[in-house]
């Protein structure tokens, strides 16, 4: 099963309500994925302050070695996730994290996104994060019912493997082992045996090679077999694509104030002005992209 929610706010006066709305949406889809959950929040000035880079981490208990290595590192513990930010480039911060926190798993990095995930009921996660108090211009979330790999914090979505990029997936890729092998041959490094991570690595790989988001997702449709509804976000965009069979549900609602995507309507029903929204199901293998 699994549940997906996403919210791309066009109306700046709604930015203070991003976390509250995302938490309400996610809560509606807890039954679709009660084993783990995750969210990514774009543009929260506390989590990702302007002028600094932020890295999201799992399996970190003490960031002192990083603080001793880099000046002005701030640490934000959020349940099973730890965020660190510093006034350096993302690459510099990532290199410092790898050197000083060898047990940590990087689950997100960039200048504008905070990725937070963990095992357990989605409602517990949103509470432990204080999601309802977070702000920003875009957010994505996922509730997971694991099928292809173990229930672990790193197996939860979103998968964020490129700068400010996130992918959430409902479904299962059939040929992920083949594509993982091909990407490894191209030098791509993986964190897990999870099929969705392969989708995220593929998209990031295509974006790094110069494709735009729409082209990267078209290439994904050509290369991947299996079932998928995907929500992919970047530093400025929000995109949805489904496989040719389109059995994994997806609904998009659009108003002048926001664009939202969810697995089921009940997650959209919590949004302000939804009664006047244009609501539609994305067509199979059609890529939908909204840019800020």
């Amino acid at each position: 099963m699994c549940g997906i929610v996403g919210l791309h706010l066009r109306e700046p006066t709604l930015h203070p309500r991003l976390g509250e709305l995302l938490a309400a949406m996610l809560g509606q889809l807890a039954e679709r994925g009660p084993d783990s959950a995750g969210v990514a929040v774009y543009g929260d000035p506390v989590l990702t302050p302007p002028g600094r880079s932020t890295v999201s981490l799992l399996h970190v208990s003490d960031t002192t070695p990083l603080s001793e290595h880099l000046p002005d590192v701030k640490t934000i513990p959020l349940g099973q996730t730890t965020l660190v930010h510093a006034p350096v480039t993302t690459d510099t911060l990532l290199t410092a994290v790898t050197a000083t926190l060898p047990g940590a798993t990087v689950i997100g990095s960039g200048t504008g996104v905070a990725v937070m995930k963990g095992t357990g009921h989605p409602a517990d996660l949103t509470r432990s994060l204080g999601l309802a108090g977070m702000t920003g211009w875009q957010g994505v979330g996922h509730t997971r019912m694991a099928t292809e790999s173990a229930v672990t914090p790193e197996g939860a979505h979103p998968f964020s493997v490129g700068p400010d990029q996130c992918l959430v997936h409902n479904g299962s890729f059939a040929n992920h082992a083949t594509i993982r092998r091909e990407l490894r041959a191209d030098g791509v490094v993986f964190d897990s045996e999870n099929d969705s991570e392969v989708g995220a690595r593929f998209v990031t790989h295509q974006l790094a090679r110069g494709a735009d988001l729409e082209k990267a997702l078209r290439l994904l449709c050509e290369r991947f077999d299996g079932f998928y509804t995907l929500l992919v976000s970047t530093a400025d965009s929000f995109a949805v694509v489904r496989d040719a069979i389109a059995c994994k549900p997806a609904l998009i609602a659009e108003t002048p104030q926001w664009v939202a995507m969810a697995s089921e309507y009940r997650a959209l029903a919590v949004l302000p002005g939804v009664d006047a929204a244009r609501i539609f199901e994305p067509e199979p293998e059609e890529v939908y992209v909204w840019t800020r």
Partner: protein
Amino acid sequence: MDPMTVDLAATPVRDLNQALHAPEPEQRWRVRNPRGAHAIACGLTRPLSVEIDGHVGYYCAGMNQHAAVTVNGNAGVGVAENMMSGTVRIRGNTSQSAGATAHGGLLVIEGDAAARCGISMKGVDIVVGGDVGHMSAFMGQAGRLVVCGDAGDALGDSLYEARLYVKGAVKSLGADCVEKPMRDEHLTELAGLLKAAEFDEDPAAFRRYGSARRLYHFKIDNAY
């Protein structure tokens, strides 16, 4: 007499459904604030009238017998699935698998239906005012599917005996589904279905599709 009104913002769906299943329920019901909840008005067995104001979630009016259920909004996956009799009318659009496996009754969708509308239909009549998605009437065994708009890919794939009428374009026909001539009895049948659905369409503007019956028997040429 005013209908019995239930506000799902205050009343759980289970309470509503239990009230609709009571031995001697009220005859007319109005449901407010469905907000995408699942399984609203499922398993009704009496000739009740239920009108729902808003969008419903999965399996609304599933297994319906005799009741008339109207949704003033959109419906999620599997609306009127396995319906036996009665009428279900959706004023908006429906998600995938509308009317799946339904044996009887009339399902009217005034907007568009998504993929697999009428999948494995077993006798239901489905009339869609707009378009239907891919693989509609997949493995349909009996009943009629009327589409006033266009049909997506693989219409009527692996069809047994359901009859399909489409006014607009068919993107592609599924395995063993073929166009068939519209004879007088088909025009009469279609006119009756359009009238029952309260759609003002000209039967002569439709084309008929059905099974070529080539999949009924094992063909040695297909063996490996």
